[in-house]
């Protein structure tokens, strides 16, 4: 490795001369003849970035071989299978902040390979969420996710509605600031089966994540400090009650417990949902006449408050380098490149959110200058919302606990159990899980 880096230095000089600044602002080293095997997340939202890999190859002389490209959950499954089979000698892998703690020992601590200034360029919260037990396991790419409130503007310009609302609830009808108000308004707007007040994801990690953020917003905790489950607290019951109330009032589609993100996005785009807490990936989709009936009528606001703070369950995608990689230097260089300022500028131009502070600023400025009021509004909402972002508990058992909790949440929502029963049962299951895992 030592030898290579000396050679690398020499060649780096040559490369700069030959390629005469191949449009890359930074130096990514030189890796002639090195082939990096990468497993990348596939899907249209993520592909645009991979087009830039050619630039890295041109600048460094290295080659990237994409040995796998799969969707979010499929790639997680594949990486776990790899760990089981011991076939982990590929170099760069797509990662996600919610998945990262599971892959114990698979990826290197990037703190050892990067300078502090370099890490300082990222939004501190995302670096924190990428760090497990002090090890920086991934570098965030421009795919940051936090949910804000999308709403149909027309509901707030109708004087008759405003008067009726004031009459009934005693305060002015405006874009909701708290989740209590969301509940009132959702029940007020709802006219099933033609129109719904709001909707929420109802299964898998999606519902647990939504419950988790509501729990935090109500001042509760998912786990105690000793890692025992704590979400059946008063705050937890208040959080879950919110979902149950909306379901009982038929303010959400009856199928909401079968929904995940795609159903929710399509639902709001059909123009039949008044208020929708949703991810940045949909911002463009919702306001595009080719895909959405709500286009032109979409407003974006910061996510509402619970009784204590705002919700803000967040996550982000990134890239990691495996411990078994033969040429970690080249792999780190590729990861640096894919998460660099230029790459993030390019990727976030597609509508996703960056994880570098400088790129945030540049994007907000560009949107303001560009005269695209909707994009500026959305970016401002996301920028404000990102301030409150928090990740899921960084334990390898998160995914497993989700599978215990979500059927119980569903049971409470559809009325099979009371809120208290459901949460107690879920806590019991998670408690057993954490004991099995040896935390206490």
């Amino acid at each position, binding site marked *: 490795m030592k030898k290579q880096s000396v050679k690398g230095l020499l060649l780096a000089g040559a490369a700069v001369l030959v390629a005469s600044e191949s449009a890359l602002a930074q130096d990514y080293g030189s890796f002639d003849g090195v082939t990096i095997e990468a*497993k990348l997340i*596939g*899907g*249209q*939202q*993520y*592909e*645009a970035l*991979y*087009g830039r890999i050619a630039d890295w190859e041109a600048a460094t002389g290295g080659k990237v071989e*994409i*040995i*796998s*490209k*799969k*969707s*979010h959950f*499929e790639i997680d*499954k*594949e990486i776990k*299978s*790899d760990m*089981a*089979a*011991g*076939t982990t000698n590929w170099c760069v892998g797509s990662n*996600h902040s919610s998945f990262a703690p599971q892959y114990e020992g698979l990826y290197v601590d990037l703190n050892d390979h990067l300078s502090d200034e370099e890490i300082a360029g990222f939004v501190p919260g995302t670096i924190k969420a990428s760090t497990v037990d002090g090890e920086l396991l991934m570098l965030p790419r421009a795919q940051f*996710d936090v949910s804000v409130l999308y709403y149909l503007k027309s509901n707030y310009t109708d004087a008759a509605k405003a008067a009726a609302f004031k009459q009934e609830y005693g305060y002015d009808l405006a874009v909701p600031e708290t989740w209590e108000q969301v509940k009132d308004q959702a029940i007020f707007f709802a006219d099933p089966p*033609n129109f719904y007040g709001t909707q929420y994801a109802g299964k898998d990690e999606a519902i647990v994540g939504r419950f988790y953020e509501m729990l935090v917003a109500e001042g509760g905790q998912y786990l105690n400090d000793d890692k025992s489950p704590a979400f059946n607290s008063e705050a937890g019951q208040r959080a879950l009650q919110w979902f149950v109330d909306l379901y009982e009032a038929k303010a959400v589609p009856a199928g909401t417990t079968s929904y995940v*993100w*795609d159903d929710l*996005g*399509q*639902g709001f*785009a*059909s*123009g*039949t949902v008044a208020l929708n807490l949703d*991810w940045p*990936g*949909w911002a463009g*989709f919702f306001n595009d*006449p*080719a*895909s*959405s*009936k709500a286009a032109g009528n979409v407003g974006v606001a910061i996510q509402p408050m619970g009784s204590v703070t705002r919700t803000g369950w967040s996550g982000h*995608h990134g890239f990691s380098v495996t411990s078994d990689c033969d040429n970690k230097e080249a792999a780190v260089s590729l990861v640096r490149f894919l998460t660099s300022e230029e790459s993030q500028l390019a990727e976030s131009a*597609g509508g996703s959110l960056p994880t570098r502070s400088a790129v945030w600023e540049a994007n907000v400025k560009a949107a303001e200058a560009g005269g695209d009021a909707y994009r500026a509004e959305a970016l401002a909402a996301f920028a404000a919302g990102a301030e409150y972002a928090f990740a899921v508990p960084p334990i390898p058992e998160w995914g497993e606990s989700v599978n215990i909790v979500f059927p119980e949440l569903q049971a409470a929502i559809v009325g099979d159990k009371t809120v208290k029963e459901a949460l107690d049962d879920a806590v019991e299951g998670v408690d057993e899980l954490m004991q099995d895992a040896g935390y206490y």
Partner: protein
Amino acid sequence: MDRNLAHRNRRRALKVAHFLTLFVVMSIICIPGLWIVLNSFRPTVEIMAKPPVWTPSFTLEHYRAMFGGAGEGGVPVFSYFRNSLIVSVVSTAIAILIGMSGGYAFARYRFRGKAGWFVGLMLFRAVPGVALSLPLFIVFARLGIIDTHFGLILAYVAMNVPFTIWLTDGFFRQIPKELHEAAEIDGCTRWQAFWKVEFPVARSGIASAAIFAFLTSWNEFALASQLTRSVGSKTMPVGLLDFTAEFTINWGGMCALAVLMIVPALILTFIVQKHLIAGLTFGGVKG
């Protein structure tokens, strides 16, 4: 006279009823499928519209995007198609050869524990793909045949062999032993007798076994998603998931790829239709 008329009326009524029932049944079979085809030609905003749009407009946008570059919604359709074709055709061919040889053994030889062997082989087909996928992956990973056509072909051959043995076995039994005995007397070896006498007669049975094997391989997902990884080996069912991201799904695009999957299978089925019925008739039952 009167009775005759009543009789004729009844027959006519029955005919109409038959036609109507058939029409309704065929509609139920076709509509969910045609809905996919239709959606592949509709703009996204109409697919999920509410209130629904009943008079569809027509667009080739999903197809254009699918064949377009990465980042504009393009997926490597040609690679997926090629992989699917190679894997399905080769695995079907090998499964048929192995199945024929096994079926011949069951039909023409007497040996101890024959029924046990037969049921035993069948049962391996009963192992659910989800239960098999991980152990199979670990074994294949040790052998280094993950993400290759070879690995997937091997898996599909194993999956299809039991069924082809079954069908061909029944078919060979149908053929009188005297036929190949006569050929052997004429100086043919058993091997030659097989190809000259028995194989041509069993052709329909083999064709029907082949179409079932082909459709199984063409549509298989659980194993393929585990054993393939890159563009070089992913098959079309696995490719369908390219249209999903963490939070989004491109339903129109998925439909367009689905149409590309369905059409070749449909054409093939239509072509072998005649053999299919004949093959199933003799193969399965009379064994």
